[in-house]
C-alpha cells in the first residue's frame, strides 16, 4: 500500500533548497518527499512554521560514558520521570535521560537525526547497543581515533597512507561515521595523570597534538569522506585557550577537502573561546574566534552553548574532567581505554550568579551572533556538557530576541557587562537562520544532505517538523515553547509526534561510512595492527570489530579513495 501525506498551508523554511518562509505544500510518498501525491492523508499546517527534521551535529546520547553518567547520578534520573504509555517506554532523567526519553524528547523538538559525538572504538558495541534503544532518531556515531597508539606511531613516522588505512579499518570496525579527535595526545598523557598542550610532546610517543591533528586531517581527506575530522582541541575549558584554538584551526588550512566543505569541524567552540590567565580575569574571546571563522573557509563550528542549571559533564578529555572535579569537589568518574582513549564524568552546576559561568553563557551566544554566515555554525550544547539538549529552545529564543537576552543579563552576574560582548550585540536571528543552524548546516557539514537529511527537496526523507508558531511571532516565550514541543513531527512520512505527544516510535536508521582503501596498504597496516592485538589489547583481533547484529537498521555510505 502506498502511504501518502500532504502537509498543506505551512510556511516552509528549507534553507538547503533556498526556501525562506514560503507558503508551500510538502508531499510525501513512502517516506520520501515527492512532487505530488494523489490520495494522501492531509495535515493542515495553517500558516505555521514548517522545517525539515532537525539534525544535531554533536551530542553525547549513547555509550559507556553516557551510561556511567546515568549510573552515578540517580538524582538526575529522578528529574524526568514519566510513566510508560501504550506507545512510550518509561522515562527518566534530565541531563542524562534514559535512551527512550532521549528519542522521544528530540522528536518532540522536531529533531530526526542525532550524531553521537564520541564512541570509544573498543567499546563501540556498547554505543550501538544503546543507539538501538533510542527510538525514532536516525543516528550515527563518531569513533575516537586520535589518542590511538597506531595513529600516533604513523604520525611520527609520517606514513599518512598507512594512517589512512588505519582510519579506514577503524571506521569500518566500529560502524562509525568519521574521525573524532578529543584532546589529541592529552588523553594518552592522562593515562599517566598528565596532559598536553598543542605543541607538547606526548609522553613516550614523541609526537605533538598539532602533528596528530594535521596528520589525521590529511589522512581523512584521502577518502571521499562525507564529514571532515571532528575536533575537540587541546586545553578545553582553560582560561586563555583561544589562541590554542585558532592555532589548531590553522593546522589544516592548506589541506584540500574532498569536496565543498571545511577540513575541520571544531566542536563546542564556547569551551575553546576563553581569554584571561586565571578564573579571576577570565573573559570572552568569542570575538577573536568569530573573526577567524569569518575570514576563513576551512573551519566550521558548533556552539556548545550553556544552559543554566545542573548538568552532567562527560568527555573523552580525561584530564579536563579531573580539573573540573578539582574545582567542584563533586563526584568524579574516569575510564581510560587501552591504546585508544579515555573519559571522565562529573556533575556541574552553571549558575547565573557566578561570573565565570555567566561569561561562558554569553560566549556561546556571542559566537552565533558574531559569526556572520550561519552556514558556518550549528546549534549545540555539547549535550550534556554545557547543558541538556532539551534546552535548545531556550538558545533559539535568545538568538531571536535581543530583549530576552537583555532581560536575562540583568539577572546574572555583572561580569557579563565587563568581560563579555553579548549585551552590546543587537543582531537577532530570523527563522531561516534558525533553520540553518538547527538542520541545514549540520546536514551539509556531515554530508547527509546527499542522503536525504536536513532538507525537503524532492527525494529527501519525509522528516518534517511543524511548529505551532506563526512566522511573525516575536515573543521569546512563545518561540521557546513552540520549539520545545512540535505540533507535528513526521519521520519518514509517519507522524511520530502530534500536539507535543509521541504517537509512534519507529526504529531509526544507523548511518555508517565505509572508507575504501587499497588492499596492499591495508595489508601493510594490518601487520602493525595485529601486533597491537597480539601484545597489548585485552581482547582479540577477531572479537574486536562490531558485528552486523549490533546495527539492525543500517545505512551505508561508501567513501572511495580519492584518485
Amino acid at each position, binding site marked *: 500500500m502506498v502511504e501518502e501525506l500532504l502537509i498543506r498551508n505551512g510556511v516552509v523554511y528549507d534553507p538547503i533548497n533556498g526556501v525562506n518562509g514560503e507558503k508551500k505544500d510538502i508531499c510525501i510518498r513512502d517516506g520520501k518527499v515527492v512532487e505530488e501525491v494523489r490520495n494522501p492523508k492531509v495535515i493542515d499546517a495553517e500558516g505555521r512554521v514548517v522545517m525539515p527534521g532537525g539534525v544535531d551535529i554533536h551530542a553525547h546520547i549513547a555509550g559507556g560514558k553516557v551510561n556511567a553518567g546515568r*549510573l552515578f547520578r540517580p538524582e538526575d*534520573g529522578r528529574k524526568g520521570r514519566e510513566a510508560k504509555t501504550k506507545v512510550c517506554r*518509561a522515562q527518566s532523567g534530565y541531563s542524562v535521560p534514559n535512551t*527512550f526519553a532521549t528519542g522521544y524528547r528530540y522528536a518532540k523538538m522536531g529533531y530526526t537525526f542525532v550524531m553521537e559525538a564520541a564512541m570509544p572504538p573498543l567499546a563501540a558495541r556498547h554505543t550501538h547497543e544503546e543507539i538501538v534503544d533510542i527510538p525514532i532518531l536516525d543516528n550515527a556515531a563518531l569513533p575516537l581515533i586520535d589518542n590511538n597508539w597506531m595513529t600516533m606511531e604513523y604520525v611520527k613516522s609520517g606514513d599518512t597512507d598507512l594512517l589512512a588505512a588505519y582510519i579506514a579499518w577503524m571506521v569500518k570496525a566500529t560502524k562509525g561515521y568519521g574521525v573524532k579527535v578529543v584532546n589529541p595526545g592529552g588523553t594518552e598523557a592522562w593515562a599517566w595523570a598528565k596532559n598536553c598542550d598543542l605543541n607538547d610532546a606526548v609522553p613516550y610517543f614523541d609526537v605533538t597534538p598539532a602533528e596528530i591533528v594535521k596528520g589525521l586531517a590529511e589522512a581523512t581527506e584521502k577518502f571521499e569522506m562525507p564529514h571532515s575530522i571532528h575536533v575537540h582541541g587541546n586545553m578545553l575549558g582553560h582560561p586563555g585557550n583561544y589562541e590554542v584554538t585558532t592555532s589548531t584551526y590553522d593546522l589544516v588550512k592548506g589541506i584540500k577537502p574532498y569536496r565543498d566543505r571545511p577540513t575541520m569541524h571544531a566542536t563546542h567552540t564556547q569551551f575553546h573561546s576563553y581569554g584571561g590567565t586565571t578564573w579571576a580575569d577570565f573573559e570572552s574571546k568569542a570575538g577573536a574566534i568569530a573573526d577567524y571563522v569569518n575570514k576563513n573557509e576551512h573551519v566550521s563550528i558548533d556552539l556548545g552553548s550553556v544552559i543554566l542549571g545542573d548538568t552532567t559533564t562527560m568527555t573523552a578529555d580525561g584530564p579536563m574532567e579531573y580539573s573540573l572535579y578539582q574545582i567542584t569537589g563533586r563526584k568524579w568518574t*574516569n575510564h581510560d581505554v587501552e591504546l585508544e582513549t579515555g573519559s571522565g564524568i562529573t556533575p556541574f552546576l552553571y549558575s547565573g550568579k557566578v561570573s565565570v559561568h555567566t561569561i561562558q553563557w554569553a560566549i556561546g551566544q556571542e559566537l552565533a551572533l558574531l559569526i556572520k554566515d550561519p552556514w558556518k555554525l550549528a546549534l549545540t550544547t555539547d549535550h550534556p556538557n554545557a547543558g541538556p539538549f532539551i534546552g535548545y529552545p531556550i538558545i533559539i529564543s535568545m538568538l531571536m530576541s535581543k530583549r530576552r537576552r537583555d532581560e536575562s543579563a540583568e539577572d546574572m552576574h555583572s561580569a557579563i557587562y565587563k568581560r563579555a560582548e553579548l549585551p552590546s550585540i543587537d543582531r537577532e536571528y530570523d527563522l531561516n537562520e534558525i533553520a540553518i543552524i538547527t538542520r541545514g548546516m549540520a546536514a551539509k557539514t556531515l554530508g547527509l544532505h546527499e542522503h536525504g537529511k536536513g532538507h525537503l527537496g524532492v527525494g529527501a526523507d519525509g522528516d518534517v517538523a511543524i511548529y505551532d508558531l506563526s512566522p511573525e511571532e516575536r515573543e521569546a516565550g512563545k518561540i521557546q515553547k513552540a520549539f520545545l514541543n512540535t505540533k507535528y513531527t513526521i519521520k519518514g512520512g509517519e507522524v511520530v509526534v502530534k500536539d507535543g505527544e509521541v504517537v509512534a516510535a519507529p526504529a531509526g536508521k544507523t548511518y555508517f561510512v565505509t572508507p575504501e582503501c587499497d588492499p596492499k596498504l591495508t595489508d601493510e597496516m594490518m601487520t602493525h595492527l595485529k601486533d597491537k592485538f597480539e601484545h597489548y589489547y585485552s581482547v*582479540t583481533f577477531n572479537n574486536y570489530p562490531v558485528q552486523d547484529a549490533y546495527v539492525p537498521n543500517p545505512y551505508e555510505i561508501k567513501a572511495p579513495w580519492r584518485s
Partner: protein
Amino acid sequence: MVEITDVVCSLCGCVCDDIVVEVEDNNVTKVKKGACSVGKSKLMGHGRIESPAIRENGSLKDCSYDDAIKKAAEILAAARRPLLYGWSSTVCEADKVGVELAEEIGAVIDNTASVCHGPSVLAIQDVGLPSCTLGEVKNRADLIIYWGANPAAAHANHMKRYSYITKGYWTAEGKKNKKLIVVDVRRTATAKMADVFLQIEQGKDYLVFSALRAMLYGYEDVVPEVVGGVSKKDLLETVRMMKEAKFGIIFFGMGVTHTGARHNNIVNAIQTTRAAHTHTKFNIMPMRGHYNVAGINQVCTWETGYPFAVDLSRGYAWYNPGEHSATDLLIRRECDVALFIASDPGAHFPGESIRHLAKIPVIQIDPFPNPTTEFADVVIPAAISGIEAEGNVYRMDNIPIRLRKLVDTEYMADEEILERILGEVRAIKEKEGE
C-alpha cells in the same frame, strides 16, 4: 572435529576471549587453550534440566515449552508484587526483554549485583569511580592491590591476562618490575603470591582504608600504631609503594562489599584511590563476579536510569535499594511471585529469604538444575549463552564482547523464552482489558 578460536568464556567477569576449543558431534570435546579450570569446567558442560516442568502436588511434572511458558505468563499476569531477579549469567539481549517484561507487569527488577557489588554501585553514586579498562592495567600498572578479593579462586585468569603476571607495553618484563599487595582476612592463595600481605582483622577494612587515606594526605600523625590488625609500619610501607608507583590499581571484591560497613567501605576505598591520585596515576575496579553482571547493570541503567533494584510498579522507574532490593522484598515477605533467570537464589540468598520463596509461586529459567529448582513451580530450561547461544556481554571493566555460539541446541534461548512470556502476558492483559 572442528577447532573454534576466539571463544569467549561465559563464566566470570574476566570474560576471557582467546579460548580455543574442539567441537565434535555437536559437543565441546576439548578446551585446548585459554580457559582457567573454572571456565573449562563450564565449557565442558554439566547435567541439564531436561524438560520444561510444572509443579503439581509437590513434584515437578514434565511438560512442553508452550505449557510452561503459558503457565509462567499466567502467574506473572496475575501477580500484584512480582520480583524478576537474576540476569547476570545471560546476554544483554535477554536482559532487555526482561526490563520490558518488568515494565509491562509493574515488577521490581533486580539483579545479582544486589548480593555482590550492589554496595559498590551505591558508593559510585556517592563519589564516582576513577577506573580504566583491563588492558590499561596490563600495559601500565606497576602496583597491583587485591583487597578482599581472591582471584586465585574466583577469577583464576585475572592475574595472568590482565594484572600481575601479564606482560604489556611498559610492563614487558611481567611481574619482575611489578609489586603485588594483597589485603585479606585469610592468607589466601593470592595472598601467598604478594610482595606485601596485610592480614587485617575481619570487618576492619574501613579503618585500614581510613588510615591509608590519612597518610596519603600527609596526616601520618593521626594514625595509631596498629589499625585493624595491621602495624603502622606496614601501612607506611604500603603508602610509600602507592606513592612511588607509576600506575597503581586497587581491585576489590566481596571481602569488602559483604561485611558490616558495606558501601561505606567502598566509598572509603574510592576516596583512598583519589588520595593516591594526588601523587600518581591510581585507579580502582570492582572484581565483578558473573560474566554479565556488569551488562545487566548497563542495560538496566540505559533503559530505566538505574542499575539494579528498580521498582516499575508506578509505571516509571523508582530506585531505592534497601527498600526493594530482592533480599529486602523477600525478608519483608512483600513479593507474591518471583521469576529467577540465570541465577540461583536457592544457593545464594540467606535462608530467611528462601523461607518466603518456598511459599510463593516461583518461575525458574536456567540451563542447569540447582537448589532453586527444588522449590520452583515452573521450570523452563534454557540454552547456555556462550555455548549454545550468542549475544552481548560486558566484562568487569565494562568492555562489551560478543559471546559465540559453539554448538546447536534444541533448548530455547533466554531471549526467546522471555519474548514468548511477554507475548503471552500481553495477550492475557488484552483479554482482561476487553
